[in-house]
């Protein structure tokens, strides 16, 4: 029990950003991450998300790939350039091997095709959080 509480303490300080131009995604993902103890901010406009990112620190970014203005790959590049320790999880309704390969090559922590179960994202986020705590990537 104490271990679990201690784990909760550690998770509590983590901050997550969700970026998707489809409102349903942010609305549905927010509770998944908040149940894990994350402080969550949701953005439908990727440009606003990037602006906010430069103001406040985040540990994990969950972003759609195909968005108007700034796409998920560009967002990944900028976020990672700014802070390499940040874990970026990309989600997409248009999965392709090429985009997946590009995303992983550019440092994405994970690439998930929509629709996906909330549990699938939860496990990926838990791995990302563990990786952050350990300061090294967890082999998936």
């Amino acid at each position, binding site marked *: 029990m104490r271990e679990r509480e201690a784990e*909760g303490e550690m998770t*509590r300080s983590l901050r997550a950003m969700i970026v998707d131009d*489809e409102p*349903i995604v942010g609305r549905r993902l927010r*509770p998944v*991450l*908040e*149940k894990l103890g994350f402080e969550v901010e949701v953005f439908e406009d990727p440009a606003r998300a990037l602006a906010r990112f430069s103001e406040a620190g985040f540990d994990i970014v969950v972003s759609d790939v195909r968005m108007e203005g700034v796409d998920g790959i560009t967002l990944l590049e900028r976020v990672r350039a700014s802070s390499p320790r940040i874990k970026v999880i990309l989600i997409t*309704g248009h999965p392709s091997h090429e985009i997946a390969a590009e995303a992983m090559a550019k440092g994405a922590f994970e690439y998930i095709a929509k*629709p996906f179960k909330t549990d699938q994202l939860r496990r990926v986020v838990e791995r990302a959080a563990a990786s952050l705590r350990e300061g090294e990537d967890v082999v998936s």
Partner: protein
Amino acid sequence: MTNLPLRPEVRQQVRCQTQREPKGILENGPPCRRKARGLPRSVTGTERRNLKVTAPAMRYDGVSSWSTGASSRLGDGPMSWLGRMLRPKGGGEALTLLKLRVTRFRQLLRSYGTLLALLQDSAEKQGGGFILDRQYVITLAEQVAELADAVAFDLNVMTSQRNLSFYEQSERLRGELRSLVAEGGAVVPVSLGEAAAPTVSPAVLAAALARFPVLYRESGQVACRGAAAGPVCHLTDGPEPGAVVPGSVLVAADLAPGDGVLAAVRRVGAILLDRGSAAGAAARLARELRVPAIVGLGDATQRLASGTEVTVDADENVVYLGRIAELLDYYHSARLSAEEEPEYGLLRSVRRTAFPLTLGADQTEPSLRDCRTVHDLVHLAHSLAGDALCELLTTRCRDAGTVVPLAGVPWCEVRITSLERLPGRGESGAAAPSELPSRTLRAFLDGLANHPEPSAERASAASSSALNAAATEEHALAVMTSPIGFDMLDAAVGEAQETNSIYCRFAPRGENDPEAFRGALAAGVLSRLDFAVAVTGRETSGWMRGLPGAETEEHVRIVGGLFARLTRPGAAGRGQAAIEPDVDAFLKSCA
């Protein structure tokens, strides 16, 4: 919609379904509308070359006709009946046509299977356990529309273009789906905007969730999202059906209609079921009444004692032991369960246009005008295609078959046509299903011949029955005709599990059977065997695919037994209540 990228499996499906049947060899029909849609319809050079190679192998090779006087054929010549059966007989073109039509029919069945898979998949998504966006719904609509179009095409190939109006109906449904998607895209989720700020902080929520033991996580399927907590209440706890404690968590094996189920579901806070799927009736009821529900948990009735306090988080497919007040507060303050997102509303609309089978059991001859959904259209198409295939097999190709007096089936003339050169089995001369080189047909005939029906009773009813079958090593088509109509089996059993499939259909009414007991019995048996069952006034049909070879073979054997069982005379005056014992008795007899 047509500009949207298709998923790989859809592309494959569409590719398969636009393969042409060589018109020149088959028949001259009126121009197909497919041509007007810019799709190819002529035979390709490769297809012609292939036909030149394969056609001679199927032609009559000069052996005299021995398709009659069957009983004297056994072991009376230099070759066994089996060896002779394997040699292609007269009517080479009819056989080629049969082979092509069988392939086309199987393609129709694959479309049907794909539609059912989409139904199941989208029901899971509708339940709410997934994160989806509008793109998913658009792709679903596109897949369904493509299926309707492909099915209209395949049906017309099978019926010499006699059902061109299916294209119009397909186009109408496509237009309806397109409108839904366009309207759905225009909806602005005004009321949803930002969810209210929860009064429970994430840290407190996470710590609370970590304190409670998890009873189930991802063990079942989410039927309706949301969260609730309460004491477990079994459906059978109350003094009368439906007398459940308000706000409790209803636990049951399944929720069959009636017995106060509706009243019970209205009172409870959440539902946990042992059985069922997100596409099932109980799941639909839960969604209709917006009651958080998880189905298919397997052992909830055994594991959860009455009165046990549990918390159901159907958003994440988790059941906790105990009441987690923080989670309930979080949901309440954030209004998470209160509204349905537009994407889910759109998904519901698309599913309503695509999936319900509205052709009722009272419509003995449903027409295209009765088809209100894509499922109706697909169902009627494969039903009419089955009619055409039955006619071809039992008339034009009848003489190409060999009468095989199988042991155990003296009450029915069995005529078998080989659709390929099957490996011979020597000169055994034995006449038993076990000698057949077709694994699938062997299993079917084994079930048919060995089902323990009272022979005297059956003989009188089945004396006018005839069984025509066409087979390859892995595939079998069998049609049993009688004065009441026909029953059909199309099955494939091979090494590749994903292509194993069984389709069967039965005439719904027997003689002296106004209540359609025959069809109801078939539906009862097939449901127990986990077939996807459809009942209309035209037929009762069942479909399944993807089981391992041995299991598929066993199911084919049981279907063979069902063919035998249904030769028994009809049961006048027997209502639906009489079916279950008969289903039990039948399945017991197959054990």
